[in-house]
């Protein structure tokens, strides 16, 4: 992994610009993404960190265009390896999904069809994207299971999803995701449902595979500890916007946005004992009726009239860092 932020130097692998997403529901439109911008370099791990409703999973799913187009309004741009993803035809899009861009989820049970063995599903995926023989695809599946450290891979490939333990299923899903040599891996809380001793195994495995394959990764998480273990950069999301972005050390040690500061203050850490936490008051805003200006202002201890006048523009306090707060120091 590299410490270099994705935005500078060489052409980024992925660029998301001014992304807005709204879902149409029975009660009108809900604005779930309100202008998301970021770039991802080749071989970089970016963690989208945020609470429920912050837009982190929607961002991932929009990159793969997984939302129902009839009920979703998308504007902005997603550029992947020079292609305009939002403008691609359905055929090109389905080649991209599971091919150059792979996705892993929190719940591996939903990634596999319960009535086929995991091996058959991996073979099918490989042959859908590459014209190789059944035997060659099977050999590749065995190799992949070895790469994700599944013991006795031949036997495990013949197993049905329910016959694998939770950690094993998550490894099998990672193998499935890697089967077509993606350059970008999208990971949506892949360790959240796992036990602590298994979670750390999967995080270390992902970190190793990322380095071996030189993968770019967008890792979505609500857990600061997990983000700290895996990310080169962290983008903190709130109410459909990135409110702070920077190298992992800076964001964890010297957070600039009051929301990031509040999130870190709310997180119980090792060694803390029975003293009141610096909790953020209130709850995240209703996305169907966002407050004017900075969405965090109603909960912010430093809010002033300027905060509600307009959405704060992103400020770069240092190269590679970004914060949307009027109080942030300018470079």
């Amino acid at each position, binding site marked *: 992994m590299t410490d270099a932020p994705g935005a500078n130097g060489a052409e980024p692998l992925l660029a998301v610009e001014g992304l807005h997403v709204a879902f149409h529901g029975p009660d009108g439109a809900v604005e779930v993404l309100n202008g998301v911008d970021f770039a991802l370099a080749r071989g970089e791990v970016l963690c989208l960190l945020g*609470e*429920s409703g912050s837009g982190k999973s929607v961002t991932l799913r929009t990159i793969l265009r997984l939302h129902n187009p009839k009920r979703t309004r998308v504007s902005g741009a997603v550029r992947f390896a020079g292609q305009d993803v939002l403008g691609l035809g359905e055929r090109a899009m389905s080649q991209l999904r599971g091919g150059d861009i792979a996705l892993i989820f929190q719940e591996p049970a939903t990634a596999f069809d319960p009535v086929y063995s995991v091996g058959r599903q991996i073979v099918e995926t490989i042959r859908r994207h590459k014209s190789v023989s059944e035997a060659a695809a099977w050999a590749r599946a065995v190799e992949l299971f070895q790469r994700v450290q599944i013991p006795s891979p031949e036997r495990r490939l013949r197993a049905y999803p329910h016959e694998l*333990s*939770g*950690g*094993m299923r998550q490894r099998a899903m990672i193998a499935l995701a890697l089967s077509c040599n993606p350059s970008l891996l999208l990971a949506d809380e892949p360790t959240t449902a796992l*036990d*602590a*001793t*298994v*979670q*750390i*195994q999967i*995080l*270390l495995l992902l970190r190793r595979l990322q380095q071996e394959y030189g993968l770019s990764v967008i890792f979505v998480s*609500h*857990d*600061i*500890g*997990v983000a*700290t*273990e895996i990310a080169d950069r962290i983008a903190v999301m709130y109410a459909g916007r990135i409110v702070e972005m920077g190298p*992992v*050390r800076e964001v*964890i040690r010297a957070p600039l946005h009051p929301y990031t500061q*509040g*999130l870190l*203050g*709310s*997180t*119980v*850490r*090792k*060694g*803390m*004992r*029975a003293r*009141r*936490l*610096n*909790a*953020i*008051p209130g*709850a*995240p805003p209703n996305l169907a009726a966002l407050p004017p200006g900075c969405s965090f202002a109603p909960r912010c201890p430093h809010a002033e009239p300027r905060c509600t006048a307009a959405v704060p523009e992103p400020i770069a306090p240092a190269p590679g860092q970004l914060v949307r707060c009027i109080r942030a120091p300018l470079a």
Partner: protein
Amino acid sequence: MSGAPASGAAVPLLAVEGLKKHFPILGGLLRRPVAWVQAVDGIDFAVAPGETLGVVGESGCGKSTTARLLMHLVAPDAGTVRFGGRAINAPGGIGLSELRRQMQMVFQDSYASLNPRLTVADTIASAPAGHGMKRADAQRLAHDLLARVGLEPALFLRRYPHELSGGQRQRVNIARALALSPRLLILDEAVSALDKSVEAQVLNLLLDLKDDLGLTYIFISHDLNVVQFISDRVMVMYLGRVVEIGPVEAIYAEPAHPYTRALLDSMPAMDPDRRTTEPPLSGDPPNPINPPSGCRFRTRCTFAEAVCTAREPALDTVAGAKFAGHHAACHMARAGSGHSKAPAPGAGGDSANPVTAGARP
């Protein structure tokens, strides 16, 4: 809050002995048991009045079954539970209705635990009304309790569960649990589903309620940082057994069981310069249907020797423990057990703890 163990002079509020629950797996044409899930397999512990006992362990360790057994939501196969010195459901003991007035539970799923057709006011007032309180008094109690858990009564009394956020619903669940003035609250992953900023608010509320109302908590969680934050003592479970129990300082600073150590080492470091490099354990927790013989942890333990397969270690005082009331079920923690890393019989308190010494073979 005191870190003193329950074995002090006072009568423990809750004393559990030999608690056991095996669930059958039915199979075959006649739906007969073909195997048993050893969910809770003979556990002993006590909770002193006013203390918080944290319970940690991974899926299948039996922590949630233990909570349900204490509440008698499922009947135990064996064992005794005494509340305030009185046996539960025994002649001259404490009846279930009285027990559930004294002991209440808050669950992880804040939505599933509420009746969607009842307003917040009726949800909180239903238990006291059921125990004979006048309707007007019960409604006034609901009003006061709602204010107590930090929800503005005028805004929330008439609302339905679907009109509340997760954090607000969990506050309502806590208010309802408090409606019968219980002495003991079992919190089963009660903050686990909440966002961090809301979790912090609810943890603050739990600290305040405990101080103000003199409550006793059993706090079940998979989050070791939160357990350390709130607990006086901690009990670590693995495959239906207690593997270690002791004051929170002992468990976190001087873990005597290799499983406790592995759990602590599995926590993300929260420091980008001190990332974890090797997973502390490999594989998943084994299935509680056919647990390993001897020590149940031996199949994942780096210190396992012949004695670990041959004999199951008893939950016993840790040899050379620096903290009173520190017990572990590990052959390495017991002098003369036959394990090569066990202290010699009669060795003093200065023998090195093989688990915290970091001596991985």
